[in-house]
């Protein structure tokens, strides 16, 4: 399969993601420049990597969302292409309207950089089909504005549609306020769109793909994408 990683001015996890997908997963991976107005025709999945696109000026992701390539990314997503936004990429997906909600400053006002526990809430997606329901993952977070916000009505819809994919939890799997590193509503750490082809994830799976780095739990997300794209698994998506 073929991954494309978008490089914005200020992206800083682009090479980590390239390493995880190209070397770790061993799949064809290419960079996409933010000024590009065309995508390669053979892409299976676009990744918006972490970082501080455009210096996080105005709001995280607000300016990247208007990059020339985003018009193509949005078109790709609207036609069913797989898009994964990691950290700043998640913020860009929200700013661009591909995912609902928005991000606020962390409740603590601190930049939080540490490994957290995540509980898998959905496994019937292209991004999580190698995981088990309720499984715990250990993946690092690194963000200052990871406090996911959705108004009560939107949150009710997210719950009703099963769009919450990963939630922050403690080491026993309990989803508690104490285990919430940033104040996100409902401990949301990863979210999928209703169509099931666009996912945003605040933690960094690309930093958890090698035992040397302390965890390989992130690899299952990328392996899920490969399985979805190459093995023609029958992943039942909630089409609306």
């Amino acid at each position, binding site marked *: 399969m073929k991954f494309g990683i978008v490089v914005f001015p200020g992206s800083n996890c682009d090479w980590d993601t390239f390493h995880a997908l190209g070397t770790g997963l061993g799949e064809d991976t290419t960079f996409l420049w933010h000024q590009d107005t065309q995508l390669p025709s053979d892409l299976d999945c676009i990744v918006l990597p972490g970082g501080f696109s455009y210096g996080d000026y*105005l*709001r995280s992701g*607000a*300016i990247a969302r*208007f990059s020339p390539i985003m018009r193509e990314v949005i078109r790709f997503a609207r036609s069913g292409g797989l898009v994964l936004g990691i950290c700043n990429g998640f913020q860009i997906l*929200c*700013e661009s309207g591909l995912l*609902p*909600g*928005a991000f*606020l*400053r*962390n*409740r*603590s*006002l601190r930049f939080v950089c540490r490994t957290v526990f995540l509980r898998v809430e959905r496994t019937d997606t292209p991004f999580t089909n190698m995981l088990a329901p309720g499984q715990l993952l250990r993946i690092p977070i690194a963000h200052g504005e990871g406090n996911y*916000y*959705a*108004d009560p009505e939107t949150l009710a819809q997210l719950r009703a549609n099963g769009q919450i994919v990963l939630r922050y939890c403690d080491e026993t799997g309990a989803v508690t306020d104490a285990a919430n590193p940033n*104040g996100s509503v409902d401990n949301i750490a990863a979210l999928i769109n209703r169509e099931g082809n666009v996912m945003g994830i605040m933690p960094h799976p690309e930093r958890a793909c090698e035992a040397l780095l302390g965890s390989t739990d992130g690899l299952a997300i990328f392996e899920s994408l490969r399985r979805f794209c190459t093995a023609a698994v029958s992943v039942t998506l909630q089409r609306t």
Partner: protein
Amino acid sequence: MPHFRTGVIVMLQRPILDVQGNTVEQALHAIGFEMMHNVRIGKYIELELEAESAQRARQLVEDACRQLLANPVIEEYHIARLEEVPTPELAP
């Protein structure tokens, strides 16, 4: 073309917890300003533009606020000032 200067205030919507504001409020209390409450912190954006009229200028600024300057999911904006100013001389 007339030249305008405008100032836009962008604030978090009321129901959303403003952690910066809360922290500053606590600091104010700590230095003796216990009488101060409801501290909220926003952004002030100043910009200049050319437009046929003040009405058109306001409309353009509103559009810019909706599309980029404010995020309607979490923020609200308010055009605090909009005035015609002399057209600045272009830098050589």
